[in-house]
């Protein structure tokens, strides 16, 4: 059947009921209703567990452990937050995680930006091999190197006659092992940022007599600042959330990071009969709120960073 014939038939046909519905404003709103219901359903699905943790954190125990359960606390309280923050080992874990994730981010950015300068701006033999090695490292499963890392971390403190401080059960072990997966990612993303910069800027700086390091520091680094923010945040989140290595290399509670502390949490208010869910939920809110805030503020950049490699690659 030809399209021309169809078109003429369509003009002859009287206006159908569905078309009339689509033309009136009320009808259009009605047709959009399922769509908006779907949008609301997706938003509720994504946010509800977080809301539930918040609700459980501000509901007093007397109300938390009763049935039927209430969806809105009638007597909100901060007691669970006080309880969570009064645990010295939870505060300690927050500090530990900040130290670990902060150092990992700083080191990845420092080493990563220099490596990206070399990989993105200079030509040398074996460059593409290094780049592909980096890429393959980013998808390498962490569990596959656990055995090797475990041996290294528990045994490598003795080199010949010299005894270094033990790595096992120290925060250095975590910083060292987290760099294994944050560094390749940082280098890969920053290299693509470096490559995108026009060569003219750099050449102008060289003409003015700048050294390579000055070019890096004064010209290129400010230009890739958006990339530094994105990769820095992604590295921070990865290090803050990591659990496998943290639970494998850390033994003493004073060196726990946040995920390990949350996984083994047992608050003080809990008695022998009831697990202190309110306090645990307060602790989860405390550790996720900064992450969510940072994610929401920087969401456009994060999305760009996360999907840059994925779609074109």
């Amino acid at each position: 059947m030809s399209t021309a014939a169809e078109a003429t038939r369509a003009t002859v046909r009287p206006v159908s009921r569905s078309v009339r519905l689509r033309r009136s404003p009320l009808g259009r709103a009605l047709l959009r209703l399922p769509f908006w219901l779907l949008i609301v359903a997706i938003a509720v699905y994504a946010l509800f567990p977080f809301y539930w943790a918040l609700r459980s954190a501000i509901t007093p125990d007397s109300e938390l452990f009763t049935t039927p359960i209430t969806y809105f606390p009638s007597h909100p309280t901060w007691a669970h937050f006080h309880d969570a923050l009064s645990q010295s080992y939870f505060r300690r874990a927050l500090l530990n995680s900040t130290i670990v994730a902060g150092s990992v981010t700083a080191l990845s950015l420092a080493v990563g930006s220099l490596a990206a300068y070399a990989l993105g701006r200079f030509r040398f033999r074996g460059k593409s091999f290094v780049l592909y090695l980096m890429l393959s490292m980013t998808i390498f499963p962490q569990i596959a190197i656990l055995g090797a890392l475990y041996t290294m971390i528990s045994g490598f403190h003795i080199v010949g006659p010299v005894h270094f401080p033990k790595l096992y059960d120290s925060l250095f072990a975590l910083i060292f092992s987290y760099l294994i997966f944050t560094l390749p990612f940082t280098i890969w993303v920053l290299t693509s940022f470096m490559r995108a910069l026009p060569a003219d800027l750099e050449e102008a700086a060289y003409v003015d007599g700048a050294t390579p390091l000055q070019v890096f520091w004064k010209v290129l680094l400010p230009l890739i600042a958006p990339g530094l923010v994105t990769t820095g945040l992604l590295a921070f989140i990865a290090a803050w959330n990591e659990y496998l290595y943290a639970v494998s290399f850390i033994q003493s509670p004073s060196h726990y990071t946040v995920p390990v502390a949350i996984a083994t949490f047992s608050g003080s208010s809990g008695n022998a009969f009831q697990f202190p869910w309110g306090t645990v939920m307060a602790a989860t809110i405390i550790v996720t709120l900064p992450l969510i805030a940072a994610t929401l503020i920087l969401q456009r950049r994060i999305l760009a960073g996360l999907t840059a490699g994925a779609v074109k690659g």
Partner: protein
Amino acid sequence: MTRVAVALPEVRDTGLVIRALQRARVDPDAVHAAISRRRRWIDLPGLYSTADVASISKLGGIHLTPVLERVYANSSSVRRIIGSLDGSGNALDGLELSLDTVLRGDSGKVKLARDRDGRALDSPDGWSDQPRAGATVVLTIKFTAITVSIEFLLGLTIALVVNSHFKGRGIMRAIMLVPWAIPTVVAAKMWLWMLDDTYGVINDLFVRTHLISHNQSWIVQHPLVAVSAVDIWKTAPFVALLLLAGMQVIPNDLYEAASVDGANQLQQFWRITLPLLRPAILVALIFRTLDALRVFDVFQVFFGYRLGSQSMAVYNQSVITQDGHVGYGSAVSVAIFLIISLFVVIYVTVVRVSDE
């Protein structure tokens, strides 16, 4: 199930301990025999349910040793097929019996010395028999199949909805990033509480909407559903974001040309969106499969190191760090790596074949 032992020298208030044991339904004769025999360490006969003895776990002098057990379907219609176990965990019929060798695993034997006060001493011999996990690989692959397929379908749906133009699309995308930013361990804890058998909101919602007739103990009765729920919640929006980014590079002209030619929405989806989205889909599927096959956090938080409920990574980690068998553990690591590579190879070949 739990074994109970009493270390008399550690008991401060004998009366309190006796009352506590009675509350936990320990046979009174055994209790009195235990208290009166004046030995330093007494193993009480029989097994006790974990819920019963939870209340006495903090009393001085009482030692609890968890005994691993197999969990099976509770509803009668399913039980016909899946089969059932007798009280001590032996398979009686159905799938449980026919797959017994796969599901069972072997419990290990360890040579252990106890000193006079009942404390375990390190034994120079260590393990005489390694415990063998049940169906670690099968369990992980099942988990991967469930989560990756649901995450992909859900993610595609979400991406299609959010891809259309409406007010608040930016806010929607920000909301979709929230589950991704929450640490997996934290997400697992949140869901563990939501899935609670008495005060959990999931039970409440499902009972209110008559999807289930009475509260379920999700962790015990439907462990795979429970862990999958966490993973799907955490990553389906992320898969949607990946696919969304892929959809936004598809030029709008194609859709305009298609609608001029009279193609309806469904035809446009099958003939334009899906083929052009293939690279993004492939990347999303590969990344998700890799992640799901090496899943550790959720399983470890939900089930600890319980035999039969270990993912490959949990098993591997426990072999290396708990038992200290680094050599064997590294072999397991390589095996996991090979399994993961196998999946990548399958994906890449399947997609290349359908390209031609």
